[in-house]
């Protein structure tokens, strides 16, 4: 059942979620980008803002309208709220000859995510597969993921670096949400269509002023979906992925390694990259020590450091490991793609390396094929 929210409907939803004791996280404008942060009301959302994203480029821009969700992937993903950048695992204290070990209980703050795009819903599903594996459940992730209330938003304006329709993850949310919103704006009318995806979502929706959507509203939603699919900025062909994996000696691997900075930005912004390192620290007095889990990246040398050195010492080998794990071996490992088509790794690469372009080039056997879209 699809409802149309009343004028203050979105703010009522935020209020209702806060009344449940939840911290509501949503998209906000900060430091020249749309990112995620804690919001107090719907007024904190990026109303009137959109952005232009391209390989290695991001530019915030006003829409000139009062649309709230007229943008694509925010600069950050949701993973940091479930899998924080740094997590204390153990604190140990020595008193005379006794060592006391304290293992902090994982924090389980009640949260609501507002504005989760379809690609990012798929990313949450990927993270669930990794961290909620019954044989190896991650307590930090499990506690935080717990009962996060998810308000998804259908993408009406995919960015230049988006390719969720290629990955079959969007642009319209299909499952994994409590509520899903679609914003319809066409000059005269500005409506938020809402659909419940769970019992608690339906219960919350019942608290908010709304009316049943008309056939016209539903038809407009369908048109909006079709326009979004047509407006997808990038494409990644699955048969290209299979071909790209075949030739480890393809010259394109050398070519991309020459451009890759191995700076790790792609893995940091990726909504599914989950690797971490464990750091031990001791204090000056020698009585206290801590063990932390911190985000790590397969682009660092330390990532594969064994005795005597790093297994993947060349940038070529690290880029290849990242790309093929994300797109190919992830399927073997987690029965899903590690890539959800959000495009963040393309936008936030300082030198604009575009995995869709790399895969297309790697899939061709003719090495003389020019780079797609390279500036003249």
């Amino acid at each position, binding site marked *: 059942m699809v409802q149309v929210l009343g004028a203050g409907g979105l703010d009522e939803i935020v209020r209702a979620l806060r009344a449940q004791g939840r911290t509501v996280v949503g998209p906000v404008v*900060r*430091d*020249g*980008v749309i*990112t995620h942060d804690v919001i107090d009301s719907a007024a904190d959302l990026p109303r009137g803002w959109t952005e232009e994203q*391209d*390989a*290695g*480029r*991001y*530019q*915030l821009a006003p829409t000139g309208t009062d649309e709230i969700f007229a943008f694509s992937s925010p*600069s*950050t993903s949701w993973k*940091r709220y479930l899998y924080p*950048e*740094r997590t204390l695992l153990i604190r140990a204290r020595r008193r005379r000859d006794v060592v006391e070990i304290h293992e902090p209980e994982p924090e389980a703050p009640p949260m609501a995510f507002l504005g989760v795009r379809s690609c990012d819903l798929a990313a949450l599903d990927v993270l669930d597969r990794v961290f909620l594996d019954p044989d190896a459940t991650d307590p930090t992730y499990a506690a935080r993921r717990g009962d996060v209330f998810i308000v998804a938003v259908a993408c009406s304006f995919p960015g*230049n670096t988006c390719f969720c329709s290629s990955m079959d993850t969007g642009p319209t949310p299909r499952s994994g949400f409590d509520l899903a919103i679609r914003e319809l704006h066409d000059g005269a009318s500005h409506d938020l269509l809402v659909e419940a995806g769970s019992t608690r979502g339906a219960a919350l929706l019942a608290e908010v002023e709304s009316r049943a959507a008309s056939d016209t509203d539903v038809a407009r939603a369908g048109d909006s979906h079709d326009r979004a699919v047509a407006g997808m900025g990038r494409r990644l062909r699955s048969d290209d992925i299979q071909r790209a994996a075949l030739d480890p000696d393809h010259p394109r691997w050398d*070519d991309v390694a*020459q*451009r*890759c*900075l*191995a*700076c*790790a*930005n792609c893995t*940091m*912004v990726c909504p599914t990259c989950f690797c971490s390192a464990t*750091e*031990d*620290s*001791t*204090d*000056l*007095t*020698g009585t206290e*020590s801590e063990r932390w889990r*911190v*985000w790590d*990246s397969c*682009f*660092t*040398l*330390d990532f594969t450091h064994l005795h005597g050195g790093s297994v993947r010492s060349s*940038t070529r080998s690290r880029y290849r490991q990242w790309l093929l794990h994300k797109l190919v071996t992830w399927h073997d490992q987690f029965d899903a793609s590690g890539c959800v088509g959000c495009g963040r790794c393309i*936008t*936030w*690469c*300082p*030198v*604009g*390396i*575009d995995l869709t*372009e790399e895969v297309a080039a790697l899939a061709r056997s003719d090495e003389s094929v020019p*780079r*797609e*879209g*390279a*500036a003249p």
Partner: protein
Amino acid sequence: MSRDEKPSLAVWKFASCDGCQLTLLDCEDELLAVAERLELAYFLEASSAVVAGPYDVSLVEGSITTPDDVERIQEVRRQSRFLVTIGACATAGGIQALRNFGDVQELMRIVYATPSFLSTLETSTPISDHVPVDFELRGCPIDRHQLLEVISAYLAGRAPVIASHSVCIECKQKTNVCVLVAHGTACLGPVTHAGCGALCPTFHRGCYGCFGPAETANTGSMATALAAQGMGDQEMDRLFHTFNAWSEPFRSAPVPVDPPKRRGR
């Protein structure tokens, strides 16, 4: 632990501004704990009371720029069990290594009224060019948390947790917005060694590389990207050649890779 059992610490200065050894004094909250665990045996910046060597740990600041330095660093090494170089001067030759790209005789004539009084080398070089170094701590100046980490690790007999990856990882861990991609600000973060906690980008400034090159720094691709943003040759030369100018691959930068511009640039 009795005073006699404490490991001894010495702090040495070569060509430098003293900022790095001041970082030790700047550890105000931790200084008493440091003094509790280590005997500050030779630290002229803090005390003129000197205990004779040898020393368990030496912190060496500054670069080698005079014939006397060349001799003295050998003696410092002989006196030190564990030698840690601190800062861009000691690890890379410092800003004074800009002389290495020019003619020192000519510089002396320009700067000094009576250059004949000077005894200097043609180059400013890092300590590791002259003696084996056990650990290098980067930065201009060094980060005090990293200094305390190296000291704590030494005391615990473990390896220091000092990452050699890019500044970008620190930026992303702090949820900083990328100034290069989002603001078009020139930033050396992708090719610069972490350790500062992404200090400049946190304040919306571009990284200027004061921790020197990160592991496997790809300065060629970085230069290509900066050029595509409109940076001229002279500006780029200045960006790469500051406190760590003599460190490869900053030294030979910028040599842009593969001229065609990337998409979207």
